[in-house]
Every structure is written in C-alpha cells, then in structure tokens.
C-alpha cells in the first residue's frame, strides 16, 4: 500500500513536471530523444522525467566563445558488435 501511494505521488509529480519539460534533441543527429525538466540546483542539473539512455556533453563550437558554452545530449548509436569467439 505504501509503495502504491509513493508510486501514485511520483506519477502525479512527474505529470506536473512534464507540463514544464522541454524536448531534448540529439546534438549529433538533430533528432528528438526525449523530454525532461532540467533544473539547476546546488551546482548540479537535475533531470526530471527522462526515460531514455542519454549522454551529456559540452557541444563542440564552430566559433570560439569565451563567455558561453552549451551542454547537449546524445545517445549511443544502435549496438552492432560482432561475435568474438574465445581465442
């Protein structure tokens, strides 16, 4: 019962957060990779409501700027590793 209530409370909180969430776009491909609410808090960025396996990185710049950098998001490409038999 307690777990059920916690889950319901969490679902409600997430539903509210998603109203204020923004799209996350893969900075390599330009494709949408999810939605999340990003909150800077005490020196960290809290990512709320994201349900994808997303990596974070500073985005390389064409033009050097000393005053502004962007943090972006990306995902691993689909895995396609070959069979590697025991040597």
């Amino acid at each position, binding site marked *: 019962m307690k*777990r059920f209530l916690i889950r319901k409370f969490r679902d409600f909180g997430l539903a509210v957060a998603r109203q204020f969430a923004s799209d996350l776009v893969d900075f390599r491909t330009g494709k949408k990779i999810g939605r999340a609410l990003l909150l800077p808090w005490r020196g960290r960025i809290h*990512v709320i409501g*994201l349900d*994808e*396996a*997303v*990596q*974070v990185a500073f985005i390389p710049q064409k033009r050097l700027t000393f005053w502004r950098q962007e943090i972006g998001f990306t*995902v*691993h490409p*689909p*895995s*396609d*590793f*070959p*069979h*590697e*038999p*025991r*040597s």
Partner: protein
Amino acid sequence: MSRVLNVVLAHTPPAEIARLAAWWGNVAAPESLLLIHGGPEADFPAIAVPNKVHVSSARLKTGDHPRERQSYTEVFAAASEWMKGRDFTHVYFAEFDHLPIVADLGRRQLERLASEKADVLCHGLRRVDDTGWHHYLYHSKAPEFHRHWERISRRADKRVIFSMLGTGSFWMRPAFDAVAAEKEPFPMYLEIYLPTLAHHLGYRVRSFVGEEQWVRNLGCFRGKLREARLAGAWTVHPVKSLEGLRWGGE
C-alpha cells in the same frame, strides 16, 4: 537440426500454471517446455507439467526488482543443468506473463537470429554506459562494477554496458550455457547483467526490432492479444492472468 527449449519462469499458483502450460502447448511440444517454478515450494508437487524444476532463491523473489537487483542467475543455471545430455540447440526464456501469440514462434526466432547473425536476441536492448539510464547509474556507483567487466571481457572496449527488458530472450545454447556458468561476483540487476555478460563473453547480442509496441515493462495486454497478432507481434508482455483466455479466440 535446430531444437528450441522453451524455458518458462512462473511463481503463480498451480491452476494458473496449468493454464500457462496449455497455452504454451500451442507453440511447443511438452518435451520442449521446461517450467522453472519460483513460487512456494509446497505448490511444486501439484504442478502438472512433465518438465519442471523448482528454484528457491532470495535473489529471484524480490519486491522492488531493480533496487533489490533481481537475478536470474540461478534460474539460468538450473535450466542449463537440466539441459545436460539433451540435444537442444537454442533456448527461449520467458517470464510467465510474457506470452507467445504465434504458433511458429520458434521458427520465427531461429530465422531472426540467423538474419541478425546473433547469438542472443532480447527485447529493448540499449547501450547505457556513461548515460543517465537509471539502472546504469545505480550500478556504476560501485567501483567494482566496471572493474568486473574489465576483468572478464574479451572485447576491445570493456566499458560497454547494456540494458534489456528481462521478460523474454532467445539464446544460442552455447551463449546460454556460458552465461549460466558464470558466477555473479556481487548482486547486479538481471536487465543489466545478462546482456552485458553475454556481450563481454564475446557473443553478439541484438534486439527484437519491431516488437517494441507489444513488449513493455508496464501495462496489460490481456484484452489486446488479437490486435497484437494482427499487428504482427510474436509475443506480448505483460499479461498477468490467462483465466478466461483461449488461444486464437481471445
């Protein structure tokens, strides 16, 4: 000649397991079905299935599966042990609520495995290392997590970590036996552990592409089996009870 063993894990009461075995009878001969029972030991004698094994493991009976790091290591070990001396070439592992809905499931899986040149097919496979994936973050806090994979991996990139939906997976037998033979050095959640272990042992792990809509971690597809079949699905998850359902006439 390929021969698939269907390993079905269930903890439900004997009457529900009887319905489950009857359902699977539309897909596989009784001798190609192994029931792994994870429920109360007192129920085990009443389970009317020819091939059955009871597994009593605290790592199986978790309430909050990811946080308690539910494990199928003992389930895989029991199935692998049972297969010794039997000529199965492939293993399909499914939880009780992951239902087949096509009669020729094994043939389809074998063809997909061949076309993917894979050793393992699973649902919802994704690479999660160095991402914000919740299960990965939960495991990577421990320093021994990545150290373990670096120690056992035969891959060039030893940092690769996978996650999958653990409800159903199809295996070449050597891959299944190799994974079953490994001891879990410390508790890891099965959805991280199984695909990552198979990968680092050198096996090619691929996803069941196209099945995503009908194989999910939440919800219930009980009233949508016909729709799923018409949409081309091979299996559905979750369907928590078979009571009142009839193969082909749902």
